[in-house]
């Protein structure tokens, strides 16, 4: 019987759970990837170490623990290319920076076209990427078949493959390792990582947020940085700000461990499924959001069924694989499918980072550094500027779904 290679191990020590102090220079709400990365870069890049990351549950147990870890930067618009490419650059040095394994694997991300319209939009995006200096290729069906032999590129499927965009530098990483790596590095620099502590309200004075009220008492804050992903709307509303975000369940699933059949990440927006075969051999798959709104972290079963039908249609060999586990996260979706980063409306010392919806894992290092810079300098970082909340008033939207319908 053939045995498998063990994955690289974990560091001997990750982080020590801290009890809240009475006050911090910066309170980061939300201990997901974005909150942890923000705290790390505040300490590492800006020397701000009197920082708390406050997490209501177990650290990085929200979307950070639930996402399908696709990393790429081949977005359409210049603004998006800016932030995601910045992020991809950081991913490429992250194991060294954090001094721990994150299983970052640049196996390429393919986005498959099934109609003349898909081809047109795919080509448009590839062209934009290339002119922005982002590695992007257009693949004809036979080239798709070479990179992903189990993908049926014949004309048998209901919607045959007509080509694909491909970003060789894209790939996957191990989400938990990333979160823990940031937590470890941040804690080592003096950041307090506080778990099982829910922010339930705020104290304010004039245009300043003076403290967060938590399930473990009052914590005064010099500056407030919200990184609460699916719950951002709830927190902002406690400060009287109605964010233009809607929270949807987004589901994913894994199979059992299987011999390697797929060496790259394949996404198909048209037939709603995407898949990678993770390091241990399990197929990791997802689809689009559940249509309903809610905070329940529970999705509808038919969404899984439809996704499996799409998967089996494109990858006939998958028919015999098994779904081992399904789950859902809660993703915060904005009207233009681009994030919100910057000052939280009228509050002088409060900043918000949210709206990453179905695709913010790949942004973790990028937004961590950009948001930390924004909070540290009390002014938006160059790459954050386009993502200010007031674009929903001005109308200067960065619409990423209409153009390329790219989700993850």
């Amino acid at each position, binding site marked *: 019987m053939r045995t498998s290679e063990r994955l690289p191990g974990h560091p001997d*020590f990750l982080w020590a759970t801290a009890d809240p102090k009475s006050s911090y220079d910066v309170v980061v709400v939300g201990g997901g990837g974005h909150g942890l990365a923000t705290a790390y870069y505040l300490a590492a890049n800006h020397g701000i170490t009197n920082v708390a990351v406050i997490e209501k549950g177990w650290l990085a147990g929200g979307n950070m623990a639930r996402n399908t870890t696709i990393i790429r930067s081949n977005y359409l618009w210049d603004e998006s290319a800016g932030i995601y490419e910045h992020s991809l650059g950081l991913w490429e040095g992250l194991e060294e920076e954090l001094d721990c394994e994150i299983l970052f694997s640049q196996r390429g991300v393919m986005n498959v076209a099934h109609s003349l319209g898909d081809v047109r939009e795919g080509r448009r995006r590839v062209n934009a990427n290339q002119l922005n200096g982002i590695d992007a290729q257009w693949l004809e069906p036979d080239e798709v078949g070479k990179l992903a032999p189990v993908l049926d590129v014949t004309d048998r499927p209901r919607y045959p493959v007509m080509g694909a965009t491909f970003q060789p530098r894209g790939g996957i990483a191990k989400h938990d390792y990333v979160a823990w790596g940031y937590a470890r590095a941040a804690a080592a620099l003096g950041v307090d990582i506080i778990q099982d502590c829910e922010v339930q309200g705020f104290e304010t004075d004039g245009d300043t947020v003076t403290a967060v009220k938590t399930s473990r008492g009052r914590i005064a804050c010099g500056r407030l940085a919200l990184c609460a992903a699916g719950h951002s709307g709830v927190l902002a509303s406690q400060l009287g700000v109605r964010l233009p975000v809607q929270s949807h369940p987004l589901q994913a699933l894994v199979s059992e461990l*299987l011999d390697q059949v797929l060496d790259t990440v394949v996404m198909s927006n048209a037939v709603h499924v995407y898949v990678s075969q993770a390091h241990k051999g399990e197929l990791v798959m997802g689809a689009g959001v559940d249509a309903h709104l809610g905070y329940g972290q529970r999705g509808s*079963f038919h969404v899984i069924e439809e996704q499996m*039908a799409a998967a089996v249609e494109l990858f006939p060999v998958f028919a*015999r694989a098994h779904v081992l586990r399904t789950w859902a996260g809660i993703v915060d979706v904005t009207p233009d499918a681009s994030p919100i980063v910057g000052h939280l409306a009228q509050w002088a010392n409060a900043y918000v980072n949210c709206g990453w919806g179905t695709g913010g894992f790949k942004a973790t290092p990028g937004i961590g550094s950009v948001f930390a810079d924004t909070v540290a300098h009390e002014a938006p970082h160059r790459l954050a500027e386009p993502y200010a909340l007031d674009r929903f008033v001005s109308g200067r939207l960065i619409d990423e779904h209409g153009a390329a319908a790219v989700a993850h």
Partner: protein
Amino acid sequence: MSSRLPTGGTRLDRSRPVTISIDGQDVPAFVGDTLASALLGSDVRLVSAGIYSGRPRGVMGVGAEESNAFVQVTSGPGEPMVRATELEVHEGLSVERIAGRGWLPEGIDHTRYDKVWAHCEVLVVGGGEAGVTAALEAAARGVRVVVCDDRPALTDARAGELVSHPDVRVLTRTTVVGAHDHHHLVAVERRTDHLGDDAPPDVARRRLWHVKAAEVVLATGTQERPLVFPDNDRPGVMLAGAAATYVRRYGVLPGHRGVVWVAHDDGLADAVALADAGVELLVVADVRTTVTPALADALAERGVPLVLGAEVVGTDGDDDGFLYRVHLRGPDGVVVHDVDLLAVSGGLNPAVQLWSQAGGKLAWSTEAAGFVPAAPPPDAAYPLSVVGSALTGATGAVTAPATFFCGDVDDADAARVYLDPQRDATLADVRHAHLAGLTSVEHVKRFTTIGTASDQGRGFGVLTVGVLAQVLGRPVTEVGTTTYRPPYTPLPFGLLAGRDRGALSDPVRVTAMHDRHLAAGVPLEDVGQWKRPWYFPQRGESMHDAVLRECRAVREDVGMMDASTLGKIVCHGADVGEMLDRVYTGLMSSLKVGKVRYGVMCSPDGMVADDGTVARLSDDEWLLTTTTGNAASVLDTLEEWQQTEWPDLDARFTSVTEQWAVVALAGPRSRDVLAGLAPDLDVSAEGFAFMEWRDATVAGLPVRVMRISFSGELAYELHVPAAWGGALWDAVASAGGVTPYGTETMHVLRAEKGYPIVGQDTDGTVTPVDLGMAWAISPKKVREGRDFVGARSLVRDESNRPDRRHLVGLVPVDGSTAIAEGSQLVDAGADLAAVPVPMHGHVTSAYASVALGTPFALALLDGGRDRLGEELDAVDLRVPVRVRVTEPVPYDPEGERRDG
């Protein structure tokens, strides 16, 4: 040596021997065996191996709790990672051993999987004693009952009574795998897996049941939990209850010389059963210091020594790594026993997975020594109750941490205390997680991978919680479990896909004329779910030539196309006009009966969402057409606005897309053709003007004729009830010299006129003004401050910046090089290597044009309307084409041809 007993085995049909094979070795079995019982019955103890360690692994359990014995099925369609304890044998079954990782056989799996929807008042999960009792009670109330049980048959004496009840449906070999919101449970019925080649061809292999139940009763029983010690993974180490079950169900002796080590009374009863079956029990050890006297007496009667306060501290393996010796520490020190079986039982975990999936809370119960259902789901939409042993766990269990783990294990040994054998994860990993600072059970699960394998922690999960509690020095209650997630047991992708494969994976929509197109052999284009004729090649003709010919025909003569896929929505009600004024940018309420108007819809951000025509059929009946792709979403939009924002408006919407077939007739000669087909219709320019409709008899058929044009030529749309679509197509086709054309020609013709296609020339970032269609926004509505969807957004500064992207035309400067759709527009001569290269827009549509005598394109270009005549490079895959910016309406800008 065979371990098959000469008699016994409640599930066996000894009259039907079969032969199966593992790694090519034949193994005799009986119908009714599982792979696990057949292997044990033939003393085949090696079933799998540790994924990393390669250590030999055997059968530990007897059901869904099995975490070791997974194999690759190679007979039939093949299947990876199948649990040997639930795989029923049949003649010809063949399997291969695997080390924690399966493989996907090549080729398409043609197995048929079905889905069934069922409704009932009461769903009982589990057909044991408690389940049958609950089902009979419900049946007596006269309500519909569904009972699901994962075994081949119910064994309760009352099963016959239950099955004969008219309102009761009993599903055996059926596992309930999911408890979802809204009374929705999902189950899998294995219908022919156990039949092999004898499976009737007309019966689906498995069925996925969607059960909607008013009330759910969980009679799911328990799952046995092991005890752990160094080298606890050897073949020969089994669960005590499972060992006794192999005797009872399958007439198989799980071993010949054994030691039993338990922590509760049920385990002692299993020891008695093993002794009675003929296993030579050297000793029975119990963690506890006191046990129920009757059980102690029963063992004494059989001459089996019982040691209390004892624990297994290790095992030795033979050359193959199989269990060979047990080191048992009792009050008198460590004694070594030569054995081939070590049967252990740490307790019985209530099977609470479905309860937990439904959102129910769990609490640690010291009496049950397990997690039991506590608070029901917070906003339980349906009554969910638990009955039977799923509530109580094991009898007489100890409550001390010793239940889970005994003695000190040094770090070297800890690496051989397996807490998830399939993942080769051990006590050492848990200790490492703790030292690394982790305290949450969720973190430890992720750190160690314990509980992530095919059994999803059913085997060792609760035990691991206990171990973790010990390591952390905290009570089990505080540590808690991880969340149980669906599915309860693994589900094949193919089963979930069901029949939604191939042509059925998404409905194929065809028009009423489709058989004509097939007969003509035309290439089809997928447009959403529709199959549409792409072009109509003549013998040997290329697409390029066909499209040029079709274009020429429409421009110079007359052509016809199947336009049936246009979305069509009929609106009724006194307030339809008002409703349409609010969803279109234009003014619709003023439209007169008999007239047609073009309309644009925006989304709230002011961006173009769809376009089409509005015809007023009578005072309170209107017909909208939409783009093919947006038919459903426009209907949704109308319903959403009306239902959520304007319920006061009297307006109702009905999709009639499929009910009407449409033939578009276009070209300078279309009037003559129509006149010939409809002698009674006044087709004169005055009698039937552009943007009007008439009911007429065309070729003897009742047709609604609309004079509208998507080609810029004189044109008509002929709408006929779908049943006559084919007849109308034939009639027009035989009217003489009418050239059929497809979607490609349609695109060229409309592009030559600068008519944008929503979704191609727009992408959700384009306003009507950007398209040069400011005229489509009603000045009257704006003047009067009347609101419509997108109105506010359209007046923002951002929407009126002069450098917004405008729709323009492009022609190649050399007059001949084709421009590629999707090209990005950069400064003429820009150095493409000097990234980032500033981009000013992109090409949305591009074609060859006979009418213009040159390739041309439509593009969205920053400030485009102010850049006419400017030269740019259109870059596709790094290749630039020099282009000149033109008006977006290259052909007949005055519209004389269309309106004449």
